[in-house]
C-alpha cells in the first residue's frame, strides 16, 4: 500500500516534474494537479513545488494564490491534509495566509543558487518525522525572493510554539529574520521552506547528497501508517 501525493502545476511552475520524481523515488504515487482544476483527485497530501508561478510578477505567489486548485488546497489544509510548499510553494502558502509572514527580495538583491546547510528544528511535523530535531542537512537553495519577514510578535509566537522548522546555518543567505528557512502551521500539517529537498534525492545528481529524501519518506510513513 502506498499513498498519493498531489503535485500542483501552476503556469510557470518549474520543479513539478522533479518533485514528482522525488515522490516516486520515496515510494509514493505522484499525482499531477493542474491549477485550473479544483479537483484534488483524492490525494492524501499535496506539494506546491518551486518555480516562478505567473512569472512571480506582482509578488512571488501572489497570483497563484487565487487559482481554483488553491481553493481546494486551502480548504483541505485547514482540515488537516499535509501540504508542503517548497520555495515558490512556500511563497504561495504565505500569500494564502496558511502560513504567517511574507517573502521579500533577498537582501543582496541577487538570485542565489548554492548548497545550503540547515538545522531541522522541529522533527514532529508531517514532513520532517524522518529527521531528528537538531539534525543538520544540506540541500540546494535557489531563489531571489527568499527573505522571510514577519512582525516581532509573530516571530516570537513561532519560536514559542516550536513552529520554526528549519534554520539556515553557515551564514544567512538572504536576510531572513531569525535565520528562518522554513515554518509550519500550528497543527504541523502545513510546512513551507525555501530550500529544495526534491533536488537532493539522488546520489549522482545535483549536490550528490540525498539529504532531501527524508521529507518524502516522512510523509510516506505518516500516510501509510495512518
Amino acid at each position: 500500500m502506498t499513498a498519493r501525493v498531489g503535485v500542483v502545476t501552476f503556469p510557470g511552475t518549474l520543479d513539478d516534474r522533479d518533485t514528482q520524481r522525488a515522490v516516486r523515488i520515496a515510494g509514493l504515487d505522484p499525482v499531477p494537479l493542474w491549477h485550473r482544476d479544483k479537483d484534488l483527485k483524492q490525494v492524501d497530501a499535496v506539494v506546491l513545488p518551486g518555480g516562478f508561478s505567473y512569472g512571480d510578477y506582482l509578488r512571488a505567489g501572489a497570483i497563484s494564490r487565487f487559482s481554483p486548485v488553491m481553493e481546494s488546497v486551502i480548504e483541505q489544509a485547514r482540515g488537516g491534509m499535509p501540504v508542503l510548499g517548497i520555495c515558490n510553494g512556500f511563497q504561495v502558502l504565505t500569500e494564502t495566509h496558511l502560513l504567517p509572514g511574507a517573502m521579500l527580495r533577498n537582501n543582496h538583491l541577487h538570485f542565489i543558487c548554492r548548497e545550503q546547510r540547515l538545522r531541522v528544528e522541529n522533527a514532529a511535523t508531517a514532513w520532517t518525522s524522518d529527521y531528528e530535531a537538531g539534525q543538520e542537512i544540506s540541500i540546494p537553495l535557489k531563489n531571489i525572493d527568499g527573505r522571510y519577514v514577519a512582525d516581532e510578535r509573530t516571530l516570537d509566537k513561532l519560536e514559542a510554539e516550536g513552529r520554526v522548522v528549519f534554520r539556515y546555518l553557515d551564514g544567512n543567505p538572504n536576510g531572513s529574520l531569525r535565520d528562518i528557512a522554513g515554518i509550519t502551521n500550528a497543527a504541523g500539517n502545513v510546512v513551507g521552506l525555501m530550500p529544495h529537498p526534491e533536488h537532493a534525492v539522488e546520489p549522482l545528481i545535483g549536490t550528490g547528497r540525498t539529504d532531501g529524501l527524508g521529507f518524502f519518506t516522512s510523509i510516506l510513513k505518516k500516510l501509510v501508517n495512518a
Partner: protein
Amino acid sequence: MSLDTVKHANETPDIDQPWAELGLKQDEYERIRAILGRRPTGAELAMYSVMWSEHCSYKSSKVHLRQFGEKAPENDALLVGIGENAGVVDVGQGYAVTFKVESHNHPSYIEPYQGAATGIGGIVRDILAMGARPVAVMDPLRFGAADHPDTKRVLPGVVAGIGGYGNCLGLPNIGGEVVFDSCYQGNPLVNALCIGVMKHEDIHLAKASGAGNKVILYGARTGGDGIGGVSVLASETFDSTGPAKRPAVQVGDPFQEKLLIECTLEIFREDLVDGIQDLGGAGLSCATSELASAGSGGMRVELDTVPLRDSSLSPEEILMSESQERMCAVVEPGKVDRFMEICEKWDVIATVIGEVTDGERLEIFWHGEQIVDVPPRTVAHEGPVYERPYARPDWQDALQADDAAKLARPATAEELRAQVLKVIASPNQASKSWITDQYDRFVQGNTVLAQPEDSGMVRIDEDTNLGVAVATDGNGRYAKLDPYAGAQLALAESYRNVAASGARPLAISNCLNFGSPEDPAVMWQFAEATRGLADGCLELGTPVTGGNVSLYNQTGETAIHPTPVVAVLGVIDDVDRRTPIAFSEPGHLLYLLGDTKEELGGSAWSQVIHEHLGGLPPAVDLGREKLLAEILIAASRDGMVDAAHDLSDGGLIQALAESCLRGGNGARIVVPDGMDAFVLLFSESAGRAVVAVPRSEELRFGDMCGARGLPAIRIGVVDGEEIDVQGQFTLPLAELREAHEATIPALLA
C-alpha cells in the same frame, strides 16, 4: 500615409524610398527592383532590408562558412546539419540532441539586463523549434576591463538578465565563460547556448508544405518594440555617439516563454505541426519567408489578423517587429482545433494568420489589399553575398615577433609564489562563483556536472543513465596572435574539456565574434579563423552543426580581438562514470598528461604579470588532442581516474589550484628532472590534462598511456592542506582560496 500596395507600387515606379535608412546599399535596392520587376512596396522593402541585413543574411561571412559543409568530416551522428534553426546529433538509444550558440552582443551593451535576457529567450526558441525539450543553457561572456566603471554597469545587468530569464524558464545553467579584456570595452560579448533533447522521430523542420495548411502565429502579441532591432543593431558599428536612431531594445517575458515551451511540447507530443519556426531577428519577415522558402508552394498571410499590443502599428512595423516569445507553426486544417485547445490550456494566444498555397509566392494582405508579393527564396535564402576583400594586417608580423619568451621571469622561489597568487587572483583566473551562483544549476533534476567543472553534463535518460556534456571555449588573445591557430585552440580546448569529464566529443556549434567586415584586416581574421575551425573539425571528426556570426563588434576603428567561441557536444553512456575535477582523495597520484613546452605567448601569465600580448599562441596538435581524449574517456569508463582537469589558460598551476580547492585537498608536486618550475607551472601548451589516479589503478593507467604513446609524468600526490611545489614554495589552501574567491566580489558586489 496611405497604404503602399503592390498595385500602388506598380503605378508609382519613381517614388523615393528610404532604402538607405533601412540599411540597404544602392546595388541591393536595385537588385530588389530587378527581382520584383518593379519598385518594392513599403512592406516588401521592410522585409528585404531586415532579411538582407548582415545579421540575418550572413552576406559577409557566407563564403567562408561554406567550408564547414565542404570540409565536414564523415559522421553518422549528424541528423540535421547547418541551415536549420539548429543542428541535431544522434546520441544513441533513440535520442537526438540539438544545441546551438548565438550572440546577443549589441543589445546587451545598450540594455544589459534585457539584452542578455532576450538572448537566452531567442536561443531557447531555436532549440524548441527543432522539436526538442530545452534541457540546459550556457553563457560564454566577454566584458571590458574588470575594473572599468562601465563593466560595473554591464556585467551585473547581463548576469541578472541571463539568470532572470533562464532561471524563470527552469533551465539549468551548466557552464559558460567570463573573460575580461579591455578590447571588449564598449563591445561586450554575450553569447548564449541552449541544449535540447528529443527522440529521433520528434525532429521538426522550418518549412511550410501542403497547400491549404494553416499558418498559425502563437505566443506573445506583436508590439512596437525592437522594430528592426537585432538585425539593424547587429549589422553596423556604433561609436560612442551611437547610431542616429537607436532602435528600441525588446523586453523579454520569460513567463510567457515558459508557457510557450510547455505548450509547444504538448503540441509536438500530439503530432500537430508540419513545420515550425521561432520568431527571432526580423520577426515575421523572417518566419514567413523562411517557412515558405524552405517548403514547397507559396504562402498567403493576412497581416491584419496578427494580434497586436499596439493597434497603431503599420504593416511594415508588424513585419519588422522583433517582439519576443512568438512562434509560427504550419498545421493541417484538421488539426487546428486541437492545436488551439492546447494553446488555450496554456493561456497562449494563437491565431491563424494565413495558409500555404500551391503558388510560388509569399503574398501578404492588409485588410484585403495586397502589400507583399515576392518569391520567398529571394528574401530568405538568396540574399546578397559579398566577397569582402581581406588582407593580413601589416601589424601581424610585429605582433608575432614580440615574443613572450623574452619577458622577465621570476628570479626566486618567493617571486614565483607571488606570481602564482597574483595570476590566480586575477579577474580572468579568479573564481566566477559570484556570477554563476546567480544561475540555477539544479532545476530539472538531471544536472550531473555544472560550473566550475570542465564541462556541463546532464542526464537525459533516468533508466539508462545516458548523458550529454557540453563545453564552450574561446581565447581571443590566442586568436589575435594567430586567428587560424586561435580557432583551432578554441576547438581543441572545448573538445578536451568534454573528454576530461568522460564524454565522447561528437559535434560542435560556434559563435564567431569579430569586428567590422568592412575592414580587410578583420575580414582576414575571420577568413583565417573559419578556415582553422573547418580544418580542425575535419581532423577531429566533429562536424559543425550550426552557429552564429556576430560582426561589427568594434568601436570606431578598434575591433575586439577575433573571438571564435566553440561549443563541443559529447555523449556519455553512463553518467555514473563521469570524471569531476575535484581532488577528493588524499593519496591519489597526480599525472601530467601531454608535453609541456615553453609556450607563453598569449598566456595568462604574460597578461597578468606583464600586460603583454605578443608572440605565437601554443602550438596546435590535433592528433595529440584526439589521443589525449581517447585516454581520458577510456580512463573514465574503466574507473582508472578519480579526477581530471584540462590545462588551458593559467597552465598547470591554475588547474591544480582549482582541483585542490574543489576537493578540499592539497597536493605535493615534484618538479620533474630537467624541467623548469616556472615553465611547468605557467606554460600553456595545448593537449594536456592533469589526472588523479588511485594507487590501485596506477599500473593499469600507466600501461595504457605507455602503450598508446601518450606522455604521462607523475608529478605528485594529493595530500595535505596546501599546494607544496617541492623545493619552491608552499601555498596553504586557505590563502589560495582567499586569493581565488575574493577578486570578483570585490570588483562587483
